[in-house]
């Protein structure tokens, strides 16, 4: 794995973390909770080397 690819995985993990944090902190909007989770799915699949 090259340096740039590794950096992209780091960025993906960081954004996944942000989404999880936003999901955890979200108190009111169920729509936003769903949105965070949906956006998280492909990032998790990429981090787990599934897709």
């Amino acid at each position, binding site marked *: 794995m090259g340096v740039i*690819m590794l950096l*992209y995985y780091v960025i993906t993990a960081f954004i996944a973390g942000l989404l999880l944090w936003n999901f955890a902190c979200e108190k009111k909007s169920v729509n936003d909770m769903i949105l965070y989770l949906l956006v998280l799915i492909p990032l998790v*699949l*990429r981090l*787990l080397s*599934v897709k």
Partner: protein
Amino acid sequence: MTRERWIKSILAVLAVLLMLAGGLPLARHRHAQVPVVAGPGVTNVIKLSEFLPALRGTMADTNVYVLEGQEPGGKVLVMANTHANEPAGLLAALIMIENAVVEKGTLYMIPEFNASAGRNTKPGDGYPLYFDIPTEWGHKRFRMGNRDASPLEQWPDPDVYIHYPDRQSLSFNDVRNTNRTWPGRPDGPRMEQVTFAAMELMRKNKVNIAIDMHGAETMFPVTNCIVAPIKSSKIATLVSMTVKAMEGFDNHVEPSPQNFRGLSHREIGDFSDTLPFLLEAPIPFLDQPTGPKTTQLLLDGKDAFLLSLSKKKKLFVPYDENGWPMEKRVGQHCSVTLEILKQYSKKNPETAVRVRGVPKYADLVKNGVGHYFHDPSKAEKKSVFYE
């Protein structure tokens, strides 16, 4: 637990279930193995990484089946699944591996040239994950791949792919397309490493002929043909005329454009002494205006929309209610490959290549593709390899 926590827990569980429902089949597909029973002609199975160690241990590394004849002669490299959503070439290559016996010369067979693409999917376009070929001993299951390598092997894509060494600007995703990354380089992106390794195989072994088997849409003019550069064009022309006259299927020769870089039929010839030939057989499955992309469409090529377009003369192949079954496509690839060897050997008797045991077009149309696959459960363990 508060209402908010309940909602979050339920949503989280649903998200995990959705990830599992979507992700598990993809993970299974990525790691699914296709058994290959090495036939009596296979003398060795090596890895492409022998020609470039950087590929070792990656999903881009792939098997190279060597079929060496008793009598020394010419050398031929046959590649399939450069585009892993064009499976007729894969099936033809596997039939050759399982049945061919080389009498003179050597065949190097790479059935999964873009091994990463063979483990990639295109679910957003409704592609099936697998397709089955009926055989005399049951169904043989194959992975359905995608045109390009998986981003899991090579990521990110550039905005524009600058071809090496020509610096021609190509589409961003062509950096993962092993029919755009020839001749490759050892320190380039992964797919350039794959094509570089293949170039090294050809250069080190002084390969005389390279055959790259593909499929193309019926609405695309470059189908049912051999694409060849000038140095291969005479043999390609003779092959095309002969199969048309003697085996009864349509074929023509398309010249390899000098200004379109990265393709095997261009760069193999420009960067080595090998004569390249790229074979195209029709694959209705890939045409845009079809019905649902089912395994049935992949296997028999029958589609009502294409039939309607055919009546309006919008297709580049003769098309009717019988579709374009896999037997015909695989048969075309086998027959054209054999004819290339024959015509080359006629003109170059010292580097002739003689092969037997490979079925031709008429045999495949009559017996079906599955007839030529052997049952891995009944084969000796040391003869079974996995793709």
